[in-house]
C-alpha cells in the first residue's frame, strides 16, 4: 500500500501533467516527425545497429532485436582478462530477467516485483544511485503472476524511461530525475492480468502487452501515447475482428486465414473471452515497412479439449502498424496449441539472401522448436526447421503454412501422455537470442526438456489459474537441460551447439568482438567464441543468471558488459519461491526438472558490470 504522502504526490503529478499536456503534445509531434524523417532515410543498417554511441536504449538493443553491439574492444582474444568492474545489489530476491539500459552516462535497472527502478550514475566508474523510483505495485499481483514476479526491462526514449509493473501499470519516469511522468493502469489483477514484458517505444507509441495466459486472461497489445500514457489503441489476440484490429488492410499470406472473425469462430462459444493469447514477449520494428512484429501467447486453458478449434490468434505472429495497431498480416505458428507453445519469442529482422534472393525476413526461433524464416512484408513462411529435439510435430507444410502434428503426443483427458518434446516451456522460452551480422549466426539460448502431461478438466474462476494440465518435466535426450545453439538461418542448420546442465534461461548478447555472452542458472556468466562456440571466459556470480546481458561504452570510453544475476523465473522458481521438489507438478511441472538447482544457487539480485582491466 502506498503511503498517504505518495498518494498526494501522485495526485499532484497528475494535475501538473494536465497542465503540460499541450506542451507535451507539441514535443511529441516534433519527435514523431523527426523519427519519420530518420526512418525514411535509413538504409538496412538502421535495422541492425545499436548506435555507435555505445548506448543500450531498449532491452533488445535495436529495433530489429539483434542484441548485437558494434563495440569491439572486448574481443575473443582479450575476453579472458575480463573482470568485474563494479556491482550493485538490487535488494530483490526473485528472478531478475531484465536488461539494464544505458543512456548516456546513466544506467537504468528495473527489478522484479516490487519493480523498483534505479538510475545508476556511470561517471564515477561505478554505480552510484542517482535516483530510485518505487512504484509500489499492489502486493496481490504476486498471486497472479504465473511464473515468478519477473520484469524483463524498461525502454528509453525521449528522456523517458518507460516500464511495466507487475500489477499491470505502465509508468513513464523522467530519465534525469526519476520523477513520474505518467502512470497508466492497463489491466486488472483481479482478472489475472499482470505485465512483465519490456515495452518497445516506436516513435510516439509505447507498445506494451499483458501476461496471464495461465489465468484465462484475454491477451492484448496496447499502443500508448509516449507523452501522456493515454491508450491510443488496444489490439486483442482473440475475439471479433474489430477487437483484434483486423481491418481492410489485413492480408495474411495463407488463404485459410483470410476468413472474418476467426478469433470467434475457432473457439467454443465465448471461450475467446478467457482464451489467453497474451503478449508478454518481444516486439520488433521495421521502420522501413513501418510494421511492428509481435507474437501472442498460448491459448487458455492448456487442456486442449476445452477449446476445440484453431483458437485464433493465439500462438501467432502479428504484423501491425504501430500508429494505429491495425493488423497487416498474421500467422499462427501453433494452431490449437496443445503444449503451451506460446508464440511470444523475439522476431529478428534481417535482410538475408534466401535461395539466392535478398529478402526482408523475420527470423523467429519459436517455442515449438522450429526456426521460422518468414517474409516480413507478407507473412510467408520461407522455411521452418527444428533447432532442438522435437517430437510433437512433423514439420511445417510451406504451401499451407500448417504445422503437422504428431497425434501420439496430443494430450488426452485423464490420461498421461509421455515423452512430449519440447516440454511446455518450449524448445525456447522468453530468453532472447542474439544475431551477429559478422558471423551470420543466430545465438539461441534455450532448453532441452521433455514432459509427461495429463490434461484434466478445469473451471474458470476469475483471477485464479486456468490451466487444466498436470505436467512433469525432465531433461530431454542427452540428459542436459540447456543448450546454446548457433543457428545459420540461411542454410537452416546449426553451426554449433553448447550443452548446459541447466536450461539456459538468460538472454544472449553478440558483439563485434566476435564474443557471445550468456549466463547460466548455476551462476556462470560465460563468453564464448562467436564462430566456434569455444568457451573463452567465465565468471561465477552470486546467484544464478536469467537476465539479459548488455554491453555499452562507458563515459570513460571503455566497453563494459553488464548482466543481472538473481535466479528465478519459471525455471528458477524452485529457488526464488521456495517450492517443494517432492511435488513433481510444482510450478506447472518445471520443478521436477530442477530438483537439484537449490544445490547450485541461492536467491539473489545483483548487477554485475565487467570490463577489461
Amino acid at each position, binding site marked *: 500500500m502506498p503511503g498517504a504522502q505518495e498518494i498526494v504526490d501522485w495526485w499532484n503529478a497528475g494535475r501538473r501533467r494536465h497542465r503540460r499536456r499541450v506542451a507535451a503534445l507539441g514535443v511529441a509531434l516534433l519527435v514523431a516527425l523527426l523519427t519519420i524523417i530518420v526512418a525514411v532515410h535509413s538504409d538496412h543498417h538502421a535495422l541492425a545497429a545499436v548506435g555507435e554511441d555505445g548506448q543500450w536504449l531498449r532491452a533488445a538493443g535495436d529495433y530489429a532485436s539483434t542484441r548485437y553491439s558494434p563495440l569491439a574492444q572486448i574481443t575473443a582474444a582479450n575476453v579472458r582478462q575480463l573482470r568485474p568492474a563494479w556491482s550493485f545489489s538490487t535488494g530483490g530476491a526473485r528472478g531478475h530477467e531484465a536488461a539494464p539500459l544505458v543512456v548516456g552516462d546513466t544506467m537504468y535497472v528495473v527489478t522484479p516485483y516490487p519493480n523498483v527502478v534505479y538510475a545508476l550514475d556511470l561517471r564515477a566508474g561505478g554505480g552510484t544511485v542517482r535516483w530510485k523510483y518505487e512504484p509500489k505495485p499492489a502486493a496481490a499481483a504476486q498471486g497472479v503472476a504465473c511464473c515468478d514476479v519477473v520484469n524483463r526491462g524498461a525502454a528509453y526514449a525521449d528522456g523517458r524511461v518507460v516500464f511495466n509493473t507487475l500489477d499491470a501499470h505502465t509508468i513513464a519516469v523522467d530519465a534525469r530525475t526519476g520523477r513520474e511522468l505518467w502512470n497508466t493502469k492497463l489491466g486488472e489483477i483481479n482478472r489475472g492480468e499482470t505485465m512483465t514484458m519490456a515495452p518497445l517505444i516506436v516513435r510516439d507509441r509505447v507498445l506494451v502487452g499483458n501476461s496471464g495466459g495461465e489465468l484465462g486472461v484475454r491477451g492484448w497489445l496496447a499502443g500508448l501515447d509516449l507523452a501522456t500514457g493515454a491508450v491510443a489503441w488496444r489490439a486483442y489476440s482473440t475475439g471479433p475482428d474489430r477487437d483484434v484490429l483486423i481491418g481492410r488492410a489485413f492480408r495474411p499470406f495463407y488463404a485459410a486465414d483470410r476468413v472474418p472473425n476467426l478469433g470467434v469462430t475457432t473457439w467454443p462459444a465465448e471461450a475467446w473471452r478467457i482464451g489467453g493469447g497474451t503478449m508478454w514477449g518481444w516486439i520488433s520494428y521495421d521502420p522501413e515497412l513501418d510494421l511492428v512484429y509481435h507474437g501472442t501467447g498460448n491459448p487458455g486453458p492448456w487442456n486442449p479439449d476445452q477449446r476445440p478449434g484453431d483458437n485464433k490468434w493465439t500462438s501467432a505472429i502479428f504484423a501491425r502498424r504501430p500508429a494505429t495497431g491495425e493488423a497487416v498480416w498474421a500467422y499462427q505458428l501453433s494452431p490449437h496449441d496443445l503444449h503451451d507453445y506460446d508464440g511470444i519469442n523475439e522476431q529478428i529482422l534481417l535482410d538475408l539472401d534466401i535461395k539466392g534472393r535478398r529478402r526482408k525476413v523475420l527470423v523467429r526461433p519459436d517455442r515449438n522448436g522450429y526456426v521460422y524464416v518468414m517474409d516480413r512484408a507478407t507473412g510467408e513462411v520461407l522455411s521452418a526447421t527444428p533447432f532442438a529435439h522435437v517430437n510433437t510435430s512433423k514439420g511445417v507444410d510451406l504451401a499451407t503454412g500448417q504445422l503437422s502434428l504428431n497425434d*501420439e503426443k496430443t494430450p488426452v483427458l485423464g490420461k498421461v501422455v*509421455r515423452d512430449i518434446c519440447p516440454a511446455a516451456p518450449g524448445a525456447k522460452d522468453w530468453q532472447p537470442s542474439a544475431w551477429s551480422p559478422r558471423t551470420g549466426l543466430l545465438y539461441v539460448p534455450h532448453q532441452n526438456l*521433455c514432459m*509427461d502431461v495429463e490434461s484434466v478438466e478445469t473451471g474458470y474462476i476469475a483471477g485464479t489459474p486456468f490451466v487444466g494440465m498436470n505436467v512433469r518435466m*525432465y531433461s530431454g535426450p542427452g540428459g542436459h537441460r540447456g543448450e546454446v545453439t548457433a543457428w545459420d538461418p540461411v542454410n537452416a542448420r546449426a553451426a554449433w551447439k553448447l550443452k548446459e546442465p541447466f536450461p539456459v534461461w538468460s538472454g544472449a548478447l553478440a558483439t563485434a568482438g566476435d564474443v557471445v555472452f550468456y549466463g547460466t542458472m548455476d551462476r556462470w556468466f560465460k563468453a564464448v567464441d562467436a564462430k566456434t562456440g569455444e568457451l573463452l571466459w567465465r565468471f561465477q556470480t552470486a546467484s544464478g543468471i536469467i537476465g539479459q546481458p548488455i554491453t555499452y561504452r562507458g563515459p570513460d570510453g571503455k566497453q563494459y558488459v553488464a548482466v543481472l544475476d538473481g535466479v528465478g523465473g519459471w525455471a528458477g522458481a524452485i529457488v526464488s519461491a521456495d517450492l517443494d521438489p517432492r511435488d513433481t507438478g510444482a510450478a506447472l511441472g518445471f520443478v521436477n526438472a530442477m530438483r537439484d538447482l537449490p544445490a547450485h544457487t541461492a536467491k539473489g539480485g545483483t548487477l554485475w558490470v565487467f570490463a577489461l582491466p
Partner: protein
Amino acid sequence: MSQRALDVSALPTIAYGPRASIWWGVLGLVAIEGSALAIVGVSYLYLRQNFVAWPPPGTPLPALGAATGDLVVLLASIVPMAIVDRLARAERRRPVAIGLGVMVLLGLASLALRALQFAGALGCRWDSHAYGSVVWTLLGMHAAHVLTSTLENALLMAVLVVGPVERKDFVDAHVNAFYWYFIAAVWVPTYALVYLAPRFL
C-alpha cells in the same frame, strides 16, 4: 466269508509322490498360486495395451543382470533340491538336513538378487505407473514364494537337526522339493515376461 474284512494292517504308513495326500495338498497350493501368478501375468499383458511404449518413456528396460543371476540360481537350485528329494525318500536324516541348509542359502541368494532387482534393475517404483505396479507385483509375488519356501526349508532343517524326527518329516522334505520345483520353474515365465517380453513387445 474271507472277503468280509479287508485287512490293511500290512500297508505302509508312509508314501511319497502322488500316493501321498500331502503331495496333493501341495499340488492344490501350486494350482492356486500358479493361477494367481498367471492372472497377474495376464494383467501385465492387459495393461500393456494402454501404453504406447513399454516400459513407458522415462523408465529404462529392466536390467538383465541380477534377474538373470536369479534365473541361474533358481534353475541351478533344482539340482540340490532333487538330491535332497532323493535323500529324503531314503530317509537319511543328516544329509537331508545339510541339503536343506544348502537350499536355504540358495533361497537367500535368490532373495538378495531379487532385492537388487527391486532396488535398481526395474528403474521405476511401484507407484510410478501401472507398468511399475504390475512388474513390482509380479516380482514381489514370486519373491514371497521364494521366501516362504526358504523359511519352510529352514524350519524343516531345524526339525531334522533338533528332533525328534518323524518319518513324515521326510515326506515334508519331499513335498518341499516339489514346491521348490514349482517356484524355480515358474520363475522362467515370470522372468521372460518381465525381462524379455518388453524387449519384443
